[in-house]
């Protein structure tokens, strides 16, 4: 392989593009830096193609496939596995929201910890989803109970239900003290 310093500026530029390295013009003052970057990239054996965008989509794809494979890794997807097939459409549609929620799962646990307090950090992610979709999950909770849970989950199903009911009762209490007129019955 010919040495990088023998290549023309255009060739360096093309190589940088191949490795997906964002760069400016290859001029005297920038050339050294870009040659170093290329050497690092080649040493790492990076794929000589991708743009950062594709990596992002790839992550999304991986998250989506978790729904069907129910790995031990993501508790959010383990959560999804609990609900019956009737809800799969709803899940798939909302998965776009959830991928963004999973990005927000870091700041949210702090908020959840103060409110609920009893569950460890990683359990907060499912509760985040539950509290935001407060309306629809309660209606389905009746259907969830008879459904057999998948074996690979981080916390047992009944714990999730108990926790969910605790959240529902909590919300009910909050609403009943705040709004004197209506107490939403849809929760339970």
């Amino acid at each position, binding site marked *: 392989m010919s040495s990088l310093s023998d290549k023309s500026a255009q060739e360096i530029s093309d190589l940088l593009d191949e490795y997906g390295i*964002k*760069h*400016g*013009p290859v*001029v005297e*003052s*920038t050339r*050294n*830096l870009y040659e*170093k*970057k290329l050497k690092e990239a080649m040493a790492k054996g990076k794929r000589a193609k991708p743009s950062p965008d594709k990596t992002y989509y790839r992550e999304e794809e991986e998250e989506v496939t978790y729904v069907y494979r129910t790995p031990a890794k993501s508790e959010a997807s383990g959560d999804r596995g609990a609900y019956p097939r009737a809800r799969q459409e709803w899940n798939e549609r909302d998965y776009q929201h959830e991928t963004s929620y999973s990005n927000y799962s870091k700041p949210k646990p702090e908020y959840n910890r103060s409110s609920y307090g009893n569950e460890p950090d990683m359990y907060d992610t499912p509760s985040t989803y539950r509290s935001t979709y407060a309306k629809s999950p309660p209606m389905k909770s009746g259907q969830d109970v008879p459904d057999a849970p998948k074996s690979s989950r981080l916390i047992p199903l009944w714990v999730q239900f108990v926790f969910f009911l605790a959240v529902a009762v909590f919300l009910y209490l909050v609403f009943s003290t705040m709004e004197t007129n209506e107490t939403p019955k849809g929760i339970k």
Partner: protein
Amino acid sequence: MSTTSQKHRDFVGEPMADKPVTALSGIGETLGKKLEENGFDKAYVVLGQFLLLRKDTEMFTDWLKDSIGANSRQASSCAQCLKEWCDAFL
């Protein structure tokens, strides 16, 4: 709000005009001399390099480290300083 030094605030607060390289945040006497040896004798020349690297702070940081041996803190401080200056004036 990130903690910025007085030097940073001084630089970012006004057009850089003919300020020396040592006016840049993170660039002291030693690094300033090295920059001058490399032909970067004024802050605006360093700005030129920053712009050539498309205002990419990471790339610029790497360049500073490679060319004058700045450490991570100094380099990122300088990069951030230039970036904010550009956001305000460019």
